[in-house]
């Protein structure tokens, strides 16, 4: 099956000499939600802009549904919808006029029924005759999404879709994206909110300084690079580890009140059961059990800041027993 987007050795150096993209290879599969994660200035927007035809690449090539973005631009661009990061709208146009304009611009004959559907899906129908300048920021964001969906694209790029958007709207936005996926649209979103990628994406690519550091299924990524920590809160403080437990990699902390055991998330059979049994026979009474798993955020910070292996200091609580 052809990938929705195939990027090969794509490079971009701006006239200023700044290298925004080092040779990047990436394949986005049809129908998936792919999140490009990275700090500001990582090259995410440059990458998207090249695929959409707004920025000229310096080298490499991009195929969209098997078509070259430079030689078959007319074909590839008709397949793509782009929601830009900035709220760039025609302030004086009405919502319905600007969305209808976009459909025409992308070469599709007028279809008022489709435009109505898009506007209703995005809760914009009641505002259709309002000039865009009178809309709130969140509503403007919806207008941009409606414009991008006006021509029924197969691939939708969302560049920081929830930047500066309140929590409720963010949830709405995620629901819209999931709905698009159900309809078979391939979605590529960039974000620097890790929670967003964790929530939405099937696969994640982490970018930093123009390089794609890692691309993997979200679950794999978290398993491969994630760490788990088992924390045992003891009923009575221990002065020292009982010798019977020396086989386990345990650390006594908090003045003897907790025992911690760290292990890789990929470990098939973490020795939690035997450990608890051995603790019982050694007469150590466990008051509470907690496991922590490193979040995508920890993984991300580790990747971007250089370390190959993530720190063993997980932060997010996954479960508390």
């Amino acid at each position, binding site marked *: 099956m052809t990938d929705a987007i195939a990027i090969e050795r794509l490079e971009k150096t701006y006239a200023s000499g700044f290298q925004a993209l080092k040779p990047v290879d990436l394949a986005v599969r049809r129908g998936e939600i792919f999140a490009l994660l990275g700090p500001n200035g990582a090259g995410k927007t440059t990458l998207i802009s090249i695929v*959409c035809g707004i920025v000229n690449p310096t080298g490499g090539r991009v195929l969209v549904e098997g078509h070259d973005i430079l030689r078959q631009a007319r074909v590839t*661009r008709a397949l793509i919808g*782009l929601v830009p990061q900035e709220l760039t709208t025609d302030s004086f146009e009405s919502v319905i006029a600007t969305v209808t304009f976009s459909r*025409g611009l992308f*070469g599709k004959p007028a279809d008022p029924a489709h435009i109505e559907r898009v506007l209703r899906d995005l809760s914009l129908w009641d505002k259709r005759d309002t000039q865009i300048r009178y809309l709130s920021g969140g509503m403007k964001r919806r207008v941009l999404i409606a*414009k991008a969906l006006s021509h029924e694209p197969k691939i939708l790029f969302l560049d920081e879709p929830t930047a500066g958007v309140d929590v409720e709207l963010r949830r709405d936005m995620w629901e819209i994206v999931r709905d698009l996926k159900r309809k078979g649209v391939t979605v590529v979103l960039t974000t620097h909110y890790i929670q967003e990628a964790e929530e939405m994406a099937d696969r994640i690519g982490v970018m930093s300084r123009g390089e794609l550091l890692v691309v993997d299924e979200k679950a794999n990524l978290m398993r491969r690079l994630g760490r788990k920590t088992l924390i045992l809160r003891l009923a009575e403080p221990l002065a020292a580890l009982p010798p019977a437990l020396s086989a386990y990699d345990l650390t006594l902390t908090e003045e003897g009140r907790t025992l911690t055991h760290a292990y890789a998330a990929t470990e098939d059979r973490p020795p939690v059961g035997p450990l608890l049994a051995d603790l019982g026979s050694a007469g150590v009474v466990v008051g509470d059990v907690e496991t922590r798993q490193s979040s995508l955020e920890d993984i991300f910070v580790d990747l971007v800041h250089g370390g190959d292996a993530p720190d063993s200091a997980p932060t997010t609580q996954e479960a508390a027993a």
Partner: protein
Amino acid sequence: MNWHAIRAIYFFEMARTRRTLLQSIVAPVISTALYFVVFGAAIGGRIQEVDGVAYGAFIVPGLIMLSLLTQSIANASFAIYFPKFVGTIFEILSAPISAAEIVIGYVGAAATKSLVLGLIILGTAALIVPLRIDHPGLMLLFLVLTAVTFSLLGFIIGIWAEGFEQLQLVPLLVVTPLTFLGGSFYSVDMLPGIWKTVALFNPVVYLISGFRWSFFSLSDVDVRISLAATFGFLFLCLALVAWIFRTGYRLKK
């Protein structure tokens, strides 16, 4: 050809004109009427006629050209500069349209506007001064060619401009002076000695002279040279636009 896109851009631009009717149509008509009053009535009282044509009528083609030139440039430059300024240009650049289609949409709309404006001014003038048009076909041809050429020039200026000041620079410092010195209000023959020769380096002289010939069959330069010069400017602008889109100059990073 992506006709849907051309239509979309064209009607988007025409809708913008309807929203700004006062500024786009009414204001230029009023300022032209003022020229008639000042030049036609005040100076016309002293000059009476030029080469057998009443002065009031003599300045009509020049006045139409003056509006046509400035409005074509203003319309087209703003049309493409504004999306650049607010950022909505991303949509045009990412759409499946060719450079030619973008130009036809924007320049077509700008030229249509100034053409309508030119005809309105012509109509207004006909109410004020007795007018005759010896060669209506050629008159329309000059009108269309000039509207298209200077809308193209405006489009180029809009792409080149990096700020509102630059947007105004060429129209104010180049086009308006050249038009005033291009024989809008006088015949080049009326200029003293060397200035007659200097005037021939002003491209606007050829436009006004040819246009005036289509009204009164009298001109400063041969009408064929005027026509050739007008086509020359058109092709020059087309070549520049083609270069801009080929290189992505000031449009793409």
